[in-house]
């Protein structure tokens, strides 16, 4: 996935000189996603910055509003909180507040989610908060192909987009398409067709869902895995159609349970496809605690394949 994002950035920077990459360590690139950009495009367009998230995010908004197409790498998703004013009060609102006078073609990118013993301040999944702001597009690619295509679409979009990547956790889910490969924002993807139960999986949870689907296939249960890919705008019709077909839904999300994206999707399905449901909706999400450090504790908190399998089986047994 890292290589896919790197390719997208290279291609988009070559395509449009207004695209600039800003952030801490973007030249050397600790994740590898911005590696090589400085060598190719120079320090004028790939700018290492000090640790100044409040400014960097505000500056990104101001630069986008005046003609650049900046990509701000905030490193870890939790660092969005230190940039929160510009994200929540400026990027998400300026176009609306000015009656549509401003457009902000910008991308805030960061890795999100846990599972790597990074501790509570480097492991959050904050996508539901971002979705709730209303003025941001939010994408959560799960595969290298989606990562490349969504990044290219995000850079070309005239709106603020938050690109949340599950760093290093999509590698085995396919290859990177060459060249011009754009995945439109707001279009979900059925990652695996099935007929008995819909599993809506977000970000790194797609991989978990694919494994669970494989396991359950051996038991004769046909799982359809749907990856929304973009959480705002959300491709509601694809989710609803899937549930109308299968009659069952489990949502697996690495965000915390309360007021999270799993709850939102569950509510939408309850409203839009209630009559098709043959079992209660199940949510598999992170527990309502900060993400702990120790691997055993972290496993206990984050959605696991075991919990997902149990949830899916419970919807089948409900018949």
């Amino acid at each position, binding site marked *: 996935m890292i290589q896919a994002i790197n390719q997208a950035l290279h291609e988009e920077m070559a395509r449009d000189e*207004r695209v*600039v990459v800003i952030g801490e360590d973007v030249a050397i690139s600790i994740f590898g996603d911005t590696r090589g950009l400085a060598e190719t495009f120079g320090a*004028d*367009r790939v*700018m290492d*910055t*000090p640790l*100044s998230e*409040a*400014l*960097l*995010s*505000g*500056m*990104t*908004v*101001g*630069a*986008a*509003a*005046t*003609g*650049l197409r*900046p990509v701000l790498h905030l490193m870890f998703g939790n660092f969005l909180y230190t940039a929160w*004013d*510009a994200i929540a*009060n*400026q990027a998400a609102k*300026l*176009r*609306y*507040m*000015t*009656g*549509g*006078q*401003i*457009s902000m*073609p910008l991308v805030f990118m960061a890795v999100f989610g846990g599972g790597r013993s990074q501790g509570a301040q480097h492991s959050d999944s904050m996508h539901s908060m971002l979705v709730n702001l*209303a*003025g941001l*597009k939010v994408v959560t690619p799960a595969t290298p192909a989606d990562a490349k295509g969504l990044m290219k679409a995000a850079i*070309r*979009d*005239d*709106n603020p987009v938050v690109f949340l990547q599950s760093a290093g956790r999509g590698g085995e889910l396919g290859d990177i398409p060459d060249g011009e490969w*754009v995945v439109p924002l707001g279009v979900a993807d059925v990652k695996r067709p099935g007929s008995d139960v819909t599993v809506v999986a977000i970000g790194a949870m797609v991989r978990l869902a694919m494994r669970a689907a494989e396991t359950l296939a051996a038991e004769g249960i046909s799982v359809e895995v749907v990856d929304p890919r973009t959480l705002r705008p959300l491709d509601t019709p694809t989710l609803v159609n899937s549930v109308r077909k299968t009659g069952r839904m489990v949502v697996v999300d690495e965000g915390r349970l309360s007021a999270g994206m799993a709850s939102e999707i569950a509510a939408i399905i309850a409203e839009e496809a209630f009559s098709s449901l043959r079992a209660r909706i199940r949510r598999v999400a992170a527990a309502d605690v900060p993400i702990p450090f120790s691997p055993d504790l972290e496993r206990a908190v984050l959605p696991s394949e075991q919990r997902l399998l149990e949830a899916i089986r419970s919807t089948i047994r409900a018949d």
Partner: protein
Amino acid sequence: MELTTAIETETLTGWYRRMSLIRAVEERLGPASRSGELPGPVHVSIGQEAIAVGVAACMRPGDWASSTHRGHGHFLALGGDPKLLIAEIYGRATGICGGKGGSMHVADISRGMLGANGIVGAGIGLATGAALTAKRLHPGSVAVAFFGDGGANEGILFESLNLSALWSLPLVFICENNGWSEFVRTESLTRGQISKRAEPFGIPNGQVDGNDIVAVFAEVSEAVERARAGLGPTFLEMLTYRTQGHVESELTFLPGAYRPDAEVEEWKLRDPIELLAVRLRSTGVESDTLADIQGEVGLEADAAFQFARESPMPDPATALKDVFVEAVPTA
């Protein structure tokens, strides 16, 4: 005095007209706010007009400015239409933001006015970004960050001083120090001289008499020229005074007076519009000419209010528009 003679009387008269227009508009906003006619809070800049107009006089098309919650003056100084401003403050469909912004968010992108901002200090970030755009795409253009003494205590200022100096961004910091951070005297909240905060970053800085538009123009011109020439940011602290309250409705919720009347009266003796009038009269401009201007801007302000009051409220359906650019970007 040398400067006064260098600036043509016609230019000074133009400034006088613009400052007086801001005053006329804002003097009418106070009563409209207190009577309950206006929805929401209104922060006026009466007494600070020389800064807005003096800074705007140094700017040209292609430049950008970010503003504050006290932004009507910046809006009008940059050439914004008073009708669209007042209609916005009335929440009307004809307002510059279609009624979605209000007093605290008036913006006119067509004139480089990036918007008043309800978050103190946030405009500093936006202007820094505009300066980055200028440096990358439009060398010779500049960005101006307006903020107050309150905003000078936000951490984002420190971050921007560092980065704008490091990258030699074409940015001018304009701190409007009006003596009061909401309801607390600035000096009891703010250590040291604000302009000196730029000193360790090697940013040229200074204090300016913010009620003397000729002084404002002189200092800002120099700062803007430095920025245009690629020599980086400048920090100017404009010493001024807010003769009205923080917010026009404040008497409805404050327990009592928080500043002495004598202080306000003393500053009114240094009213920026009156100071400029004295200067103009000394260069031979007739008092009648100035009185005519006052009459004309009064009528212009009245017309703006009439336009606003007669304008329709927004169609509720528009509340759901303008969140995103809807057009699909071209490949």
